[in-house]
């Protein structure tokens, strides 16, 4: 199932660590403003795809293009410039900085002044800091984290840290947002909060998103399309309904039934 005029095109990507093949010929497309989910059992290669998308890993074969720009071979900070932001499965916040500073760091590429202007402060640096602070405050407001603004993120509860990390990625004003298990380790209420934020991002900010998640209820409820991976190979791709009915998917998740197994 292809998308007309896609934002992201992943074509035949293969990633191997010595003998272990993490991704084998994976291809998919993500459209503008689309919420695309990747599911699969543990070790299927979901996070490996993210690491390829933002340049932490370099695939041996294939191509990844975002709005026509080839991403493979670029360093992570260059890919960030092209417009890819992400959150991490195990929170990777800068724990000795405050919530505000973490979000301001998300604005890093948007802030224009250099080291010299920073040391003088008055003038260009101060003006830009205030300007970008406004954008950061919008995100703080959007994610409802006002009470924690000046607190060190290392001290915050897990659920709030997850939200701050989402905020840091949003502060980058990305074209494509990668969400690596945003609801992992959350209770029902927190999961619903996150689902609401993701839908709000989709509606208000019109950002394309790729969601990796183990909470099937969440994925099937909010995703536009779902891709299923198993041992680095794509086994299905389609709307949540199509995927849920796909026999290969059922086999990958539940194992083969005794009758079919022989």
């Amino acid at each position: 199932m292809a998308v007309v005029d896609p934002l992201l095109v992943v074509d035949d990507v293969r990633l191997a660590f010595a003998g272990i093949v993490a991704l084998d010929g994976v291809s998919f497309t993500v459209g503008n403003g689309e919420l695309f989910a990747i599911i699969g059992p543990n070790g299927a290669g979901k996070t490996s795809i993210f690491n390829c998308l933002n340049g932490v890993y370099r695939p041996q074969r294939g191509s990844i293009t975002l709005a026509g720009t080839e991403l493979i071979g670029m360093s992570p900070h260059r890919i960030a410039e092209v417009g890819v932001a992400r959150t991490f499965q195990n929170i990777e916040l800068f724990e000795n900085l405050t919530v505000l500073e973490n979000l301001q760091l998300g604005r890093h590429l948007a802030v224009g002044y250099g080291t010299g202007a920073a040391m003088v402060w008055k003038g260009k640096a101060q003006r830009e800091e205030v300007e970008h602070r406004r954008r950061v405050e919008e995100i703080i407001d959007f994610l409802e984290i006002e009470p924690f603004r000046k607190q060190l993120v290392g001290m915050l509860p897990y659920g709030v840290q997850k939200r701050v990390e989402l905020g840091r990625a949003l502060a980058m004003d990305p074209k494509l947002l990668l969400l690596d298990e945003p609801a992992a380790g959350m209770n029902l209420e927190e999961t619903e909060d996150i689902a609401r934020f993701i839908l709000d991002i989709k509606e208000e900010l019109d950002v394309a998103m790729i969601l990796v998640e183990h909470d099937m209820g969440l994925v099937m409820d909010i995703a536009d399309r779902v891709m299923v991976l198993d041992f680095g190979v794509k086994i299905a791709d389609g709307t949540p309904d199509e995927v849920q009915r796909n026999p290969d998917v059922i086999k990958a998740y539940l194992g083969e039934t005794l009758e079919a197994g022989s």
Partner: protein
Amino acid sequence: MRGRPNLYTSYEADGAIFPTATQKVTFWLGVAGMVALPFLGLSRVWLILLATTFVAAIGAIGLNLVTGYAGQISLGHAFFLGVGCYTGAALSGDPGGSVIGMGLDMLIWLPAAGLVAALAGVIVAPVALRLKGLYLALVTLGLVFLGEHIFRNWESLTGGGGVGRKPPVLSLLGWRFDQPGAIAGIEVSKEQQIYLLTFILLLILGFAAKNLARSKVGRAFAAIRDRDIAADVMGVNLTWYKVVAFAVSSFYAGVAGSLYFATTGFVEPASFNLLLSILFIAMVVIGGASSIAGSIMGAAFVTLLPQIIDSTSDFLPLIGDGSAGVLSPAQFERILFGLLIVIFLIFEPLGLYGIWIRVRNYWKAWPFSY
């Protein structure tokens, strides 16, 4: 805002170094006090000691930028101090002497001392792109030995071991800081002038560093320190910011090195050794990593403590030169600094600055405990 000192109504105020009027007034009163201090009958020895403290603080701020903020552990600070020290001396020195000298003004030799050291920092920085933590510490440690060897053997620059050379001349556009003069009709001695000069330089460089720390660059440093891969993914160019961290840090070291020579008047090629690097690490750890105010507190503590031990050693048991004690004051200092680094790392990683914040917060809420 009258009566509501903690209510900020603009982002400018929220991002200010002194967000409240009280803090601002207190700070500038403190500065005025420090400016007035040399005219209150302080002895020459104490004036020079305080000037040395200011110079050490400049160096400590530099080390804190690279180690405290950017998280790149550097034991090579003594090398950069040495590079700055001899650059300043060579550019300032007498052109006709036995050692290299250009006879240039302070307006040139002081920034040049910083810039040459910064250049050395830029050359070393690529090592930090490959190595982290202890491995980086070891490589920068090698730098100190390399530097020591060069300084000892390059006699036309340093004068050689045991001989040395003349310090850079504190002469700014014809004004001699190292000779008695008169400012606005007030007689000032050499020591008073050096005190004021180093204090003003510390003020300028301290504010510059503080501005850097609260800017985009400071946040990038902290991001690299806390999570380098996440920083990269967020768009922070690790190569560039590590180079900037080493360059700025070494610039501060270079300025401090040349001023140290000019202030104390005597430097040996062997002075820029591992012990000096460790003293600066002690300043950062004791004062407080990733804090500019902490760097200054740490520098004051480490510079003034030996003086206090020296002058009180007669009263301390077991400490004294020769037969007077088991440990000489110098040995005692080394043990004490080593011990203090360990104690601060374990019990108060935020250093003296952290203690100060805690005391301040206690009195803010006083007499209520919460």
